[in-house]
């Protein structure tokens, strides 16, 4: 009997040897997002794992609030994920790059022909000193989501001028909707969507770039005017009696329940909306907020919400890059992303032909495309500016809505935080990849 067990153990060990010798490299991927909301990356990892024999992708999700506070100490300790999402633009990644915590992706950019997929405008936001630091992966936009059934009931149609917009809001208020446009200002970041769009409308793409990469200031007249307009809308009750007491989750529940006629948000809500409304989803559509002033152009908001970074100390960089390629360069990955409501960067023709986009998703992208010729502006200033400025902006936007801060005070506080960040070297220089 003893011999039997001894032999069985030896055979078992020999059986395991090839498997041990061919152990797969594990690539740890951190994704910011609430549980259940970023399942697409699990699916993409599963597909990648099935196609690979030498690497396994493990996706770890962390809520948006806790993502950076968990990521930064992990990276600083020389640990953390091999591949992760993080903010882009001039503000947020500067410290990561300066600290040598993220890998230079320039060689991968050249080797895998990323230039064919990633537009130049996104390269600018993800590179500095001639090197590429992040794969700017997906495009985000924002628009005014509205409930067509409520519009029909109130006898109003989609506004194309500011006067019509005012008329729509008045009609909805008269019809008993005390919150014509839902705004979840308790969570602060949703107000930043309005701020980004309105700053872009009033200053134009050049005005925004002049501040981000030039010598423009947040106290310049267009930003003060945009802040004043937002405050006026708040005072006129457009966002309801108490926007700063409303959280994003509660607002979206009310919106999909048909209690709030409009809200300004992005395509990431569509999946939840389909789940919440079922067939009623056909009641919902999107329009571009009309120009706020005479002669103002509509600049669609267009941002990369975040980019993908590879940890400098990672021992599985090539596998991490292979996973990026499978998600964003290969048609299957791009189709899967599109079906999940995520728009990958680069030409979409092939993927769109195979994708099954919801009508609401098509609406928001059509709305964006219709005005793209005017030039686009960032959808999320809060993700591309330094943390100090984001805090001041969030607090100040609530201050505007509560009418305890003037537009001049708000923009002055923003400029002060921006200047402080610039002085501390927290702002990246304009990007672009150096020639070989």
């Amino acid at each position: 009997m003893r011999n039997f067990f001894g032999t069985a153990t030896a055979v078992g060990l020999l059986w395991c040897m090839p498997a041990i010798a061919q152990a797969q490299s594990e690539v740890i991927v951190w994704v910011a997002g609430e549980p259940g909301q970023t399942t697409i990356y699990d699916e993409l990892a599963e597909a990648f794992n099935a196609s690979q024999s030498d690497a396994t992708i493990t996706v770890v999700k962390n809520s948006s609030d806790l993502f950076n506070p968990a990521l930064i100490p992990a990276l600083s300790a020389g640990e953390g994920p091999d591949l992760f999402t993080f903010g882009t633009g001039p503000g947020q990644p500067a410290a990561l790059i300066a600290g040598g915590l993220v890998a230079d992706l320039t060689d991968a950019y050249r080797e895998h022909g990323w230039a064919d997929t990633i537009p130049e405008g996104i390269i600018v936001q993800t590179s500095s000193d001639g090197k590429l630091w992040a794969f700017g992966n997906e495009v985000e936009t924002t628009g005014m989501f509205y409930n067509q059934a409520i519009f029909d009931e109130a006898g109003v149609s989609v506004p194309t001028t500011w006067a019509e917009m005012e008329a729509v809001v008045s009609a909805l208020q008269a019809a008993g909707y005390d919150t014509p446009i839902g705004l979840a200002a308790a969570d602060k970041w949703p107000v930043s969507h309005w701020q980004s769009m309105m700053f872009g409308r009033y200053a134009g793409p050049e005005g925004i770039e002049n501040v981000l990469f030039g010598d423009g200031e947040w106290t310049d007249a267009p930003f003060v005017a945009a802040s004043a307009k937002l405050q006026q809308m708040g005072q006129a009750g457009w966002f309801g009696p108490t926007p700063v007491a409303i959280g994003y989750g509660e607002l979206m529940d009310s919106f999909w329940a048909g209690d709030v006629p409009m809200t300004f948000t992005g395509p990431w809500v569509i999946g939840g909306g389909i789940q919440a409304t079922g067939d009623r989803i056909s009641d919902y559509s999107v329009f571009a907020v009309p120009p706020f002033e005479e002669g103002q152009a509509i600049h669609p908001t267009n941002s990369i919400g975040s980019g993908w970074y590879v940890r400098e100390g990672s021992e599985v960089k090539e596998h991490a890059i292979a996973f990026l390629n499978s998600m964003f360069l290969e048609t299957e990955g791009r189709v899967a992303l599109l079906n999940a409501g995520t728009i990958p960067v680069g030409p979409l023709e092939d993927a769109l032909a195979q994708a099954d986009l919801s009508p609401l998703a098509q609406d928001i992208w059509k709305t964006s495309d219709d005005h793209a010729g005017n030039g686009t502006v960032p959808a999320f200033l809060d993700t591309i500016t330094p943390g100090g400025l984001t805090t001041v902006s969030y607090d100040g936007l609530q201050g505007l809505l509560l009418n305890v801060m003037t537009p001049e005070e708000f923009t002055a506080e923003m400029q002060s935080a921006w200047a402080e960040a610039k002085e501390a070297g927290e702002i990246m220089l304009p990007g672009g990849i150096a020639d070989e």
Partner: protein
Amino acid sequence: MLLDPNSRLAQRLNPILFLLPALSIYVVFAIYPTVSVIEYSFTDWDGISPERSYIGLENYRKMFSDRVFWEAFRNTFVWSGVILVINVGLGLVIAAMLARVWKARLLIQTCIVLPVVISPMAVATIWRWMYQPNGVINQLLDGIGLGALARPWLGDPSVVLYALAFAHSWSTIGLSVIIFLAGLQAVDEDLYEASRVDGATPLQQFRYVTMPALRPVTAVVFILTLTQSFKVFDIVWATTQGGPIRFSEILSTYMYKRGALENDYGYGSAIGVALLVIVSIATIIYLRLQNRKDQ
């Protein structure tokens, strides 16, 4: 060669060996981080870079001239004041009343103590919903004809801090009540008997018998509540993140924002040290009161 267990050296080493596991954990998870935070507070570390420079007292100089720090400082004191009034004042009254209740006492006691075991994040979620403009608090006020008092509790700068302090007290007052109840059980029943013979009303008994007898226990509850209230973070962060604007910003949330969100760990650490000093002063007072009680 093994040490003789009866030797003087072995007898001296024994207690140290028994203490060593707990002491190691305490050093690694309490002492070392505390010393590190004090060290970081003298640096310009951003929490990311491998290098950091020592900048002396610069972070403290910045802190003393930082308007937001003083707003958070003031809010922290208001916050603690409200919690002290509720947890100590109301806690004592509830305990005194419970001590006289025999029927359903266990049930009432359980109801009061139950929130203590709920996680702070769950408490925050519960109260965030209850404080909604159309939440149960406002519905209740409407229902009893006090609709004029209904308001957006977490969106109104004038009440948000008090509303959150109340929610925090709801989840912690049970501990105060338990401590007071334990103290009440030690009060000599003869004192009540004598006061009754002297014609004292229940209110007079509370004022002249219960309160003086519970003075040492009250000191304990006072200091415990004070130190705990200064350290609170979860409920504020999970409900308002210090807003609207900064009307519910307390030192712990401000420290987190500056340190973890704005990557200014040096400055965040300085705020942490300030908090440590305040809590330490409170603890010293507590220990002195304890010593006086022991003597």
